[in-house]
């Protein structure tokens, strides 16, 4: 029973560390990418990977079942609301006439060589 507790604590701590890394990488993507639609990719990493892993780690570390219920509720709420908010931002940006940065068209030289 003691070993089981230790294993659960180790998995929870590792999940917390990975979630913190995902949150930092998502924030870096939010800072460094070059377009609204590309920055949404960083926000998506932050919302899914970071929040999911950190909440999973806290769920494993929870001391009581009422705490677990609240963690699961927060997880459900974030899973349902953050993609909706990101989609609303993308739709508003698209309707405001912001064009996404597309890849440049392939040159004719490549087609000739192929």
């Amino acid at each position: 029973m003691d070993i089981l507790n230790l294993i659960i604590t180790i998995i929870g701590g590792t999940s917390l560390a990975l979630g913190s890394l995902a949150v930092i990488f998502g924030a870096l993507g939010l800072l460094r990418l070059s377009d609204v639609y590309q920055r949404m990719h960083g926000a998506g990493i932050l919302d899914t990977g970071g929040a999911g892993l950190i909440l999973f780690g806290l769920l494993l570390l929870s001391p009581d079942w009422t705490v677990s219920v609240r963690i699961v509720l927060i997880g459900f709420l974030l899973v349902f609301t953050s993609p909706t908010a990101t989609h609303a931002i993308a739709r508003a940006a698209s309707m405001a006439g912001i064009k996404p940065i597309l890849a440049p068209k392939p040159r004719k030289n490549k087609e000739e060589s192929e």
Partner: protein
Amino acid sequence: MSIQIMLTASLIALGIAVLIAFVRAALGPTAFDRALAVNSIGTIAVLAICVHGYWAGRPEFLDIALLYALINFIGTIAVLKFFRFGTLGDHLSSEHAIGHPSEDDQKSEKK
């Protein structure tokens, strides 16, 4: 004890992420960049409140995190609606919208 160190490190990482997202919210060229960054800051704040509740040994903070997640979503939708229509309530027209060239501007550009 070691899990306390892990929680402290997680709190520090969340603080750094809030700072990075705040730089994007301050720099953001369009209003939608700022809305996206503020939404991300809200998500990070929810996570930070949860981790802080564990760190302080007071899981009552999770209720506050639940409320903050709800208010964050509704606030983002309200701000986007304000961008689109210029008001939040009665007169829903896109005349005052940010980023929408109104018809008068288009006519004057054509002239």
